[in-house]
């Protein structure tokens, strides 16, 4: 496996990375944001998810200005519940990234698996899997997510609902996203299967799962990686959109999307920081991941290098 990893991260890719300032900057920003999210409990001055530490009277404090009632000062101000924006954004990013990563991993595993099976088995299995993919495509991501969210909320026991919201989000975003992984994996695998080494492996009687995982899978890694990166950005934005429609992370444990939903209702009233800072964070996150994905696509597709 190390050999294959090495093949992905071979010198071409590294060289291309060193040549692209955009890639380097966006990689730095992405890594910095991910680190901030992981280390949120260490960096954040407050724990916004612990309601007993909140003082409602701190609500709507302006950035860097002492609150009129309590006299406390917050770097990026506070939201409508008196939560420190800076801490809340860090914790919110944690949730956004967790949902994004988990959803993409879920979609990737499911999609690649189904795509490879479809390509390798062919015939009826292929037809059935790809028809299911069609059904899935019929429902655009946002609809799938709304539906699954609705269904899952119905199944979850009342007292577990607020903890379940995150997993439901992951499931619904993941399920709405697996098709493109399946299609790419299947397409790439179909090309590989016709190559001589795979035919040879089949001839010498290697077991199908070994052929799939040992020989075909490594060859579909690079297109999958590109899709995964772009999907991550999409998943983070989809989560925000679902929150806007009221089916996202709960307000007591807000993601960036939930923060933006909360903030947008204070946009006209002059409390701009409640919307602005989460929105900028989301933009930085999605943009840097998108730029990375772009660069990765160009770098892994040498045809585009003139």
């Amino acid at each position, binding site marked *: 496996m190390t050999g294959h990893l090495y093949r992905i991260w071979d010198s071409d890719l590294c060289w291309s990375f060193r040549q692209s300032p955009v890639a380097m900057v966006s990689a730095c920003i992405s890594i910095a944001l991910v680190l901030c999210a992981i280390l949120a409990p260490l960096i954040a001055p407050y724990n916004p998810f*612990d*309601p*007993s530490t*909140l*003082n*409602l*009277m701190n*609500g*709507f404090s302006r950035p860097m200005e002492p609150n009129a*009632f309590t006299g406390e000062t917050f770097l990026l101000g506070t939201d*409508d*519940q*008196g939560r420190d924006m800076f801490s809340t954004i860090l914790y919110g990013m944690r949730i956004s990234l967790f949902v994004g990563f988990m959803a993409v991993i879920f979609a990737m595993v499911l999609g690649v698996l189904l795509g490879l099976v479809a390509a390798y088995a062919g015939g009826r299995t292929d037809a059935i899997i790809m028809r299911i993919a069609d059904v899935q495509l019929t429902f655009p991501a946002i609809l799938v997510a709304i539906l699954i969210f609705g269904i899952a*909320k119905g199944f979850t026991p*009342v*007292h577990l*609902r*607020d*903890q379940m919201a995150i997993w439901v989000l992951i499931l619904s975003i993941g399920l709405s996203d697996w098709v493109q992984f399946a299609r790419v994996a299947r397409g790439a695998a179909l090309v590989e299967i016709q190559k001589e080494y795979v035919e040879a492996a089949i001839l010498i009687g290697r077991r199908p799962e070994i052929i799939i995982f040992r020989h075909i899978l490594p060859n579909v890694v690079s297109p999958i990686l590109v899709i995964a990166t772009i999907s991550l950005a999409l998943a983070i934005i989809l989560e925000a959109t679902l929150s806007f429609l*009221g089916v996202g992370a*709960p*307000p*007591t444990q807000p993601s960036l999307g939930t923060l933006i939903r909360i903030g*947008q*209702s*204070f*946009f*006209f*009233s*002059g*409390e701009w920081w409640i919307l602005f800072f989460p929105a900028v964070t989301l933009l930085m996150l999605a943009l840097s991941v998108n730029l990375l994905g772009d660069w990765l696509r160009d770098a892994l597709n040498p045809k585009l290098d003139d």
Partner: protein
Amino acid sequence: MKKIFFSTLCAMLALASTSHAETINWARAGDSLTLDPHAQNEGPTHTLAHQIYETLIMRDMTGAQVPNLATDWAPSADNPNVWTFKLREGVTFHDGSEFDSEDVVFSFERAMMPNSDMKELLSSVKEVRANGKYGFEIETNGPNPVLPANLNDIFIMDKGWTEANNTVEVQDFEGGEETHASRNANGTGPYILTERVPDAKTVLEANPNYWGIGTFPLHVTKVNYTPIKNAATRVAALLSGEVDFIQDVPVQDLGRVDGDPNLKVLNAPQNRVIFFGMNVGGDDLVSDNVEGANPLADKRVREAMNIAVNRDAIRQIVMRGQSIPAGVINPPFVNGYTDALDRIPAYDIDKAKSLMAEAGYGDGFTITLNCPNDRYINDEAICQAAVGMFAQIGITVNLDARPKAQHFPLIRNWETDFYLLGWGVPTYDSEYIFNFLVHTKTDQRGSWNGTRYSNSALDAKIVSLGSETNLAARNATIAEIWEEVQDEILYLPIHFQVLNWGMGNRVETLVAPNDRAVFKYMELK
């Protein structure tokens, strides 16, 4: 010829300028559900209906009952079960036909049909009958001293028009029926419906033959009504001048709207109280972490929770000053309200903590709070703030906020231990509150009582209110019931909502406590 032309031109110009100046573009979050005035008992539906149709008695912009199509009403001197009404003469419907007692009898009978959504308000009625062309009588099954309070939304339709258009039956709304009456309207009211696309656009124009010309300002000659669901879009439309009048300005945007030199915000307390309900009668709670016991059954826990709610902070921060902290779940307009009942529990964390310890919950417990997120003003934010306040006394509250369509069944089916609810009192009488929220849950009463509370002595008192004709005795019973409800801490009152109507500077109106705009009262500068 020249003279005629000139005067016509003048008339046209006058018409053009007045009609331009007197158009109101009105927006609110929701649209009327149907034009059939008996098919749905719902706020926005009735608000629109009140412009087109009229009732015998109505509430004016201050909430006082005033004559409308009835000029006078009184209990009959001969029979305590009968109310008599004197009807207004010289009134015509929009299609020109005359209004008389036949139409009233017909409309009341229609409002009592099985498909009618108004029939519960008339459930005590035995018979309605005409007494001459402009006399009308209602006979109830027993004495009903508060009957007129139930008549403010019983609209009068034209018998002839209804019969001619084959729409005598009330629209079967839930069955999805569409009738002539659900798409067209013919009332006696100040405005005539000229165009309607449900959920998109409704146009009303002044009725030139209205009986109240000269009595009411009637400055508005045309109303364009558009529902705008998204709050930010609604405010943007007001700020950009595309609409003149919105009924639901989000509290956070009041400053922005009021600060605009062309706009103003008027407010008034609403006839609606917001409170928490708790499972006080159950043996054990589903959503808590206490095994085999119900912490909410302990009055000390309820008292601790009651004084842990910082109502003033909710008012200042969550509601931006736009609420009136409440000590009782009875709005101030309602018969039975007293200042003594409405004493706000003093916020006292230390006392709350010691009460919790006394009750054996010094380490607190965990519970789920169910909250609607599309029903009341800032409902979700109120619950969120409460989560923080209860955390101060060791109660870990998991918040489950959902749309009202998912929230209300939890209360109905007793699937929630702790919930937010709001209550409006259209009859302006405490009996209405007791019937729905305090009486033991039975087929007839207590349908919104999610507390599992049951007290047969109290139930008997509540039932007696329906037929007690001695108002002094009746009010004494109401006071006794409130005493008991307050002593039990059956509900945790939070506040009374405040209505905020945003409008252009030229608009002059009062804010009605039932959130009902009535354009015939509106003045334009």
